[in-house]
């Protein structure tokens, strides 16, 4: 079910009515939320709910055993079981065809004539999100960082909680399961603020991403022609804006919906396009994934504890795997590799060419960071290397006879939207929406809210899927 759909509006109204009715006690409400979450997921493809159940049962069992088991060998076995099941799901459903394709290429390259039919496996929606979330529970249990969930119901709801089930934020057990222990009820202000966040999220998705930017990026990246530099840049920045509004929009909706139920979810984006460098970017972009990768991959790989070379290797591996997490294609690996390279170069710059960031050079630095990020998006968005390379050539004017496919208004529209987005991120980088709204007149805020709602209504949207659902 998509947040930007009529069925979700109906679903949410029913869930909220039942949640705030006196029909159920807290346990009953949690059961209702769990059932609703399965319906939310099953409305897409009912049989794939079974994967959620398997993941839930395996990690619940592993967590329970890890809580009481002292034998280190057995503890490791339970951890490995959890990882085997979750990563096995990912390997089969998400990377099955990719692995097969590459196996065929390797076989053929060594002279063995081997052909394989693609398995055409359906990718279960949000599998990368919920497997990472459940794994974090088992790993934290293994490290004895957290207490086990009190009941199976609490754990199952943690794995399946519908607002963040299919596209995050990837919430840690300590931040969410404990909230299910006591009855939760949003205050009036929390409920209204949650509704406001839901509106902002839908505005970002329906109006900004789908209406204003998606068409341009689709036209540019879908073109088989060699494009003029302006078109390539505009298409790239359009995608840059589209993916931010799409994904941040989803996270904002998720946070808002959870808040309407009295549940607090962590921020997933903090104005990332005003980042001052790449370390800063990863503290602001998809925070729940980058912190997951840091805690469960980068640090176990050695982090910065074993010298500079090992740190760079750990950094690069983390970013490459982070790239692959987004999709089963080499282009995503290149995207991760570029970010890994940026992070290494930034550390070298800090060591050998340090300089102080002031309010004068800050925005310039943010712009440079944003521009470098845009180059990585080319590999993220392009389906094939040929498209990506053509785009890069066009963007750096190595293609002088490129085709102009965008009209003047589209170019002005996209550059204006992206410029406003960049400036908003810059202005907001050290504050939050909540702080700004506290300083704003309630009437002005109401007008802003109405404008966003009205634009959502007239944009209508066609129930476009969120980009991150495919990851």
């Amino acid at each position, binding site marked *: 079910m998509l947040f930007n759909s009529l*069925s979700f509006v109906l679903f949410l109204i029913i869930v909220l009515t039942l949640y705030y009715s006196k029909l159920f006690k807290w346990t009953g409400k949690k059961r209702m939320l769990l059932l609703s979450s399965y319906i939310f997921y*099953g409305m*897409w493809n009912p049989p794939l709910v079974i994967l959620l159940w398997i993941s839930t049962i395996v990690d619940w069992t592993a967590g329970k055993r890890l809580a009481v088991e002292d034998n280190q060998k057995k503890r490791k076995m339970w951890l490995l079981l959890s990882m085997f099941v979750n990563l096995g799901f990912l390997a089969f459903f998400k990377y099955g065809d990719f692995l097969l394709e590459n196996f065929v290429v390797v076989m053929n390259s060594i002279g063995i004539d081997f052909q394989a039919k693609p398995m055409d496996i359906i990718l279960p929606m949000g599998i990368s999100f919920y497997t990472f979330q459940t794994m974090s529970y088992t790993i934290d249990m293994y490290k004895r960082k957290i207490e086990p969930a009190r009941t199976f119901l609490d754990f199952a709801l943690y794995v399946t909680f519908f607002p963040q089930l299919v596209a995050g934020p990837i919430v840690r057990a300590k931040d969410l399961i404990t909230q299910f222990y006591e009855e939760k009820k949003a205050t009036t*202000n929390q409920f209204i603020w949650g509704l406001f966040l839901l509106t902002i999220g839908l505005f970002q998705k329906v109006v900004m991403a789908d209406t204003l930017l998606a068409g341009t990026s689709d036209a540019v990246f879908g073109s088989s022609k060699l494009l003029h530099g302006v078109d390539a840049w505009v298409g790239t920045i359009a995608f840059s804006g589209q993916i931010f509004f799409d994904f941040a929009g989803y996270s904002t909706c998720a946070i808002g919906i959870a808040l309407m139920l009295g549940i607090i979810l962590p921020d997933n984006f903090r104005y990332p396009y005003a980042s001052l460098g790449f370390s800063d970017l990863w503290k602001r972009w998809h925070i729940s994934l980058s912190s997951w990768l840091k805690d469960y991959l980068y640090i176990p790989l050695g982090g910065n504890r074993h010298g500079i070379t090992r740190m760079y290797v750990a950094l690069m591996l983390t970013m490459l795997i982070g790239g692959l997490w987004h999709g089963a294609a080499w282009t995503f690996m290149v995207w991760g590799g570029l970010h890994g390279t940026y992070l290494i170069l930034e550390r070298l710059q800090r060591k050998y060419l340090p300089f102080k960031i002031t309010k004068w050079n800050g925005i310039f630095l943010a712009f440079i960071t944003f521009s470098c990020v845009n180059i990585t998006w080319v590999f993220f968005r392009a389906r094939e290397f040929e498209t990506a390379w053509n785009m890069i050539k066009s963007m750096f004017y190595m293609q002088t006879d490129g085709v102009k496919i965008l009209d003047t208004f589209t170019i002005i529209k996209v550059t204006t939207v992206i410029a406003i987005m960049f400036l908003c991120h810059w202005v907001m980088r050290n504050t939050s929406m909540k702080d700004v709204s506290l300083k704003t007149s*309630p*009437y002005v*805020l109401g007008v802003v809210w*109405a404008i966003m709602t009205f634009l959502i209504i*007239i944009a209508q949207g066609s129930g476009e899927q969120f980009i991150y659902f495919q990851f």
Partner: protein
Amino acid sequence: MKLKQTLTVAIIITLIATISWEAYWRSQGLYPTLNDEKALWAMARANVEKADKDDVVILGSSRAYFDIQVEQWEKSTGKTPIQLSSTGSSPLPTFHDIVNNTNFNGTAIVGVTPGLLFSTTYPKAFPWERPQSKVDFYHDRTYAQRLNYLLSIPLQKNLVLMSADEEEWNDDIDLKALLKRVNWGARDTMPPPPPFYNFGDVSIPRNMSMMPRTVTDTAFAKSIIDVWHFFGKGAPPPDKDATTEFFMKDVEKFKAKGGNLILVRPPSSGGVRMGEKMGLPRERFWDSLVKVANVKSYHFEDYDQFKDLVCPEESHLSLNDANFFTAELIKTMKADGALAN
């Protein structure tokens, strides 16, 4: 935080703005109609699964869609046909789907618009990709998508502002369409395509009828004619051999299942007809297909009651003429034994 005031202001302004928006577009002559979208097509396609020997499925492009009136058919035969024709589409992908993925062995009427049926079998080509995307949507649609569509029907039927058609007409009034209309000049020398306005209203169960404006407003009709001429000039050469070969494989399978296939060539007129005569002459295309298919077939030029029908925008019949065409076609088919009495 005084969020209650904020919410109250937001609700009041949103209501005022939305009602004003709706009233404004109604004052401009717009009225609520269903959008012709793949979810509606999928609903009709689902009916094929339970169709029997007595049922009729209509396949084709926009001519079969506009010219064979579902409601008139129902009046004349007592049975509602399943209308699966699609605008700008070759009928081949849909026929292929029905022959290969269903047990249907009733009557299939394939509308032949030569420029589309003989166009291509290339999956990425426009006339193929459009119907194939509908077929794929039908097979892949989720329960959420089905529910979304059911919920959207009463809204579409009652609100003008629900006008975001998949066709992306130039007179749609959703935000994307409004922005698309802003023209600050092109950057290359290629002439832009002429504006393409919606000229048909669809209703459940997929009955498409020409808007009265297309008949009464000649300037409007001319704008549609310009589009046909634009597409006609830019169309790649037909691929008769590949399309015929593809179609015939399915025809044989359908016949083997006991299905009754009927070919119908609906009318066209004016410049469009002239263009068809030059680029897709009857002898080379229609006659050749009829010969290899060896099924009942009806070309409008062969019947006195049809040959003088005039299409207001050169390619489709007005509602009145379409009702006449449908009723007469049924009579002719029954007399001919193509349809059971």
